[in-house]
């Protein structure tokens, strides 16, 4: 019998078999593989088989039966392979999705991944998806986010763009979040607003799907008995899928997906895959949401901890203040009273001691020394006060005028004239009024030797950036800068220069509070003091 097919030849040439093409060259010399892979599909072989069946050979019907069964099983295997390939792809995708979802605790990122996965070609390939979130506190299912093209043109553009950039799911989602999240939200804003439904509306199709906890495929939506026509009109499609997102038996949200552009049929397989996908998404969403809440609580706890630390520091500070107060009180009472008694009686005795009495010098020494000790005691007590300044905002004019008023008697007794001028609208300064007032009084009354003829003290205040400067010009003094600097060193011997003891304390007190204090000796012009008072709290800086 002459055969049309080449199945009986061990080796064939290219062109002998109509089913062997370029790339199949190895089949030309492999008879077994050629028969198994190509002959059963070949028309020449079928015709040869037909003639063999007609040849009345007893094996012919058996062979025909075997060949038919082989073809059926081959088709079935191909179908299974295709199914397995699809499943492999799906598992790979779910693995990638699971990995991305597991590694994220950011709700926006989770939602971006979820919606990208539904609409990406390599994902579920749906055209459009809406995400609705359950707000349990407000009792509403709220439209939150959507993704998808409005029309075919936009769809073509987007899909071509995705095809042009071979990106994995994570990159796609990141790209969506970075470049499209806001615009997609704005694009679907109107629809999302109208998709909001009370969770108590159990007749609404979205709540029904959520209550059932299973996906629902809605077909012929415009005539569906359970779908409100307005809802169908809002989506503008007659077929869509409702996919509830349930985590630990709690309603997290709902995804509405459709193929509004391609109108591809949503299969049972699509539904099953999306249902599998919905579990990790719902779980990731709930976890991200809980993480957000945890973060808020953590911030609250951190803030509370910070406040607690401040309170603790305040308590320690107050305890220190109380301790300093007790020490000060003890010094004041234990030292000042005896000093007063010694000095007082010495003065009393001095009054009744004639100048010729040789003991008068001793009594005068007692008076002078007790006076000096009282001055030192005042300085120590004032210094202890300065350790814990009580600052607030004060008016500079009020500060200077009160210091001038308090010192006017002393200044007048020394033959001084004083004057004050100020720039308009000076801001309030942040100071311890009592301490700065003490410093001003000390500067105004400083009894430094070298008094000249011009007994004028001019005080001026003006603004300088974030501060107000008080400038005091004492024109009567005639000291060198070196002598003045010596006076400003705490506890240095200053008797030769006069009783300028308080100036060193003032400088220390002011500098401790970060207030610059400068004393400048100017030849023929006396001493110029400048005190720069802040107009802000440290924390406002």
């Amino acid at each position, binding site marked *: 019998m002459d055969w049309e097919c080449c199945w009986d030849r061990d080796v064939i040439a290219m062109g002998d078999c109509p089913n062997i093409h370029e790339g199949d060259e190895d089949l030309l010399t492999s008879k077994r593989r050629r028969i198994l892979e190509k002959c059963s599909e070949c028309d020449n072989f079928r015709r040869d088989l037909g003639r063999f069946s007609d040849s009345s050979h007893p094996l012919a019907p058996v062979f025909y039966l075997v060949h038919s069964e082989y073809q059926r099983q081959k088709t079935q295997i191909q179908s299974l392979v295709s199914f397995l390939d699809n499943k492999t792809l799906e598992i790979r995708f779910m693995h990638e999705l699971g990995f991305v979802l597991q590694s994220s605790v950011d709700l926006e990122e989770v939602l971006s991944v979820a919606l990208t996965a539904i609409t990406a070609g390599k994902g579920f390939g749906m055209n459009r998806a809406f995400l609705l979130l359950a707000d349990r506190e407000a009792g509403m299912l709220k439209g939150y986010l959507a993704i998808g093209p409005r029309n075919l043109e936009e769809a073509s553009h987007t899909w071509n763009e995705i095809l042009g950039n071979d990106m994995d799911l994570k990159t796609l989602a990141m790209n969506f979040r970075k470049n499209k999240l806001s615009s997609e939200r704005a694009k679907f804003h109107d629809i999302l607003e109208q998709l909001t439904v009370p969770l108590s509306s159990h007749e609404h199709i979205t709540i029904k799907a959520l209550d059932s906890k299973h996906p629902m495929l809605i077909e012929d939506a415009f005539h569906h008995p359970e779908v409100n026509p307005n809802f169908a009109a809002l989506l503008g499609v007659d077929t869509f899928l409702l996919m509830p997102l349930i985590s630990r038996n709690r309603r997290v949200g709902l995804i509405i997906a459709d193929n509004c552009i391609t109108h591809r049929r949503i299969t049972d397989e699509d539904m099953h895959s999306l249902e599998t996908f919905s579990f990790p998404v719902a779980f990731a969403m709930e976890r991200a949401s809980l993480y957000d809440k945890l973060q808020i609580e953590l911030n609250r706890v951190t803030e509370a901890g910070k406040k607690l630390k401040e309170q603790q520091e305040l308590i320690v500070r107050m305890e220190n203040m109380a301790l300093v107060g007790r020490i000060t009180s003890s010094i004041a009472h234990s030292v000042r009273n005896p000093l007063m008694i010694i000095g*007082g009686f010495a003065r009393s005795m001095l009054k009744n001691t004639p100048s010729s009495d040789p003991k008068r010098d001793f009594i005068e020494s007692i008076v002078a020394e007790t*006076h000096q000790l*009282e001055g030192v005691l005042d300085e120590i007590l004032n210094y202890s006060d300065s350790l814990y300044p009580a600052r607030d905002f004060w008016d500079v004019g009020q500060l200077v005028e009160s210091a001038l008023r308090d010192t006017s008697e002393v200044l007048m007794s020394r033959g001084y004239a004083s004057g004050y001028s100020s720039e308009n609208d000076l801001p309030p300064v942040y100071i311890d009024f009592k301490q700065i007032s003490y410093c001003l009084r000390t500067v105004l009354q400083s009894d430094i030797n070298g008094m000249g003829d011009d007994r004028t003290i001019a005080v001026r205040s003006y603004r300088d950036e974030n501060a107000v400067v008080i400038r005091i010009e004492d024109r009567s003094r005639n000291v060198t800068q070196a002598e003045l600097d010596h006076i400003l060193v705490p506890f240095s011997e200053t008797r030769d220069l006069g009783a300028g003891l308080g100036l060193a304390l003032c400088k220390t007190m002011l500098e401790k509070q970060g207030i610059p204090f400068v004393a400048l000796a100017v030849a023929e012009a006396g001493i110029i003091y400048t005190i720069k008072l802040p107009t802000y709290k440290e924390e406002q800086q």
Partner: protein
Amino acid sequence: MSKLLVVDDEANIRLLYSEELADEGYEVVTAANIAEATEKLQLNSFDLAVLDIKLKNESGIELLQQLVKERHDMPVILCSAFSCYKDDFSAWLADGYVVKSGDLTELKHEIARVLAKKAQKVKAGL
């Protein structure tokens, strides 16, 4: 002659005040604590009181409050070892405040000033 009540827990300070203020022409009666001061206030009429603030376990501020209530026509000067009470609201009830010093000039000026002010008030019929 103006009659002054001096209340201080230190005996030597009471003695110093008595000597110095008597030299200024005042009649001085002293008390060491609130009970003694109250007793002397019941027996005498004073033109002015000079009070210490720390009176062992008592407070001159309490006595000041009592005097303001019961003897509102009698001015009071606080004379204390502490300058900090100047900023205490409760001390503002007093007519004057002097920090203790061996030099009694300031106290004497303050007594003279407060008594002059009282005299002016009396003259004005207030």
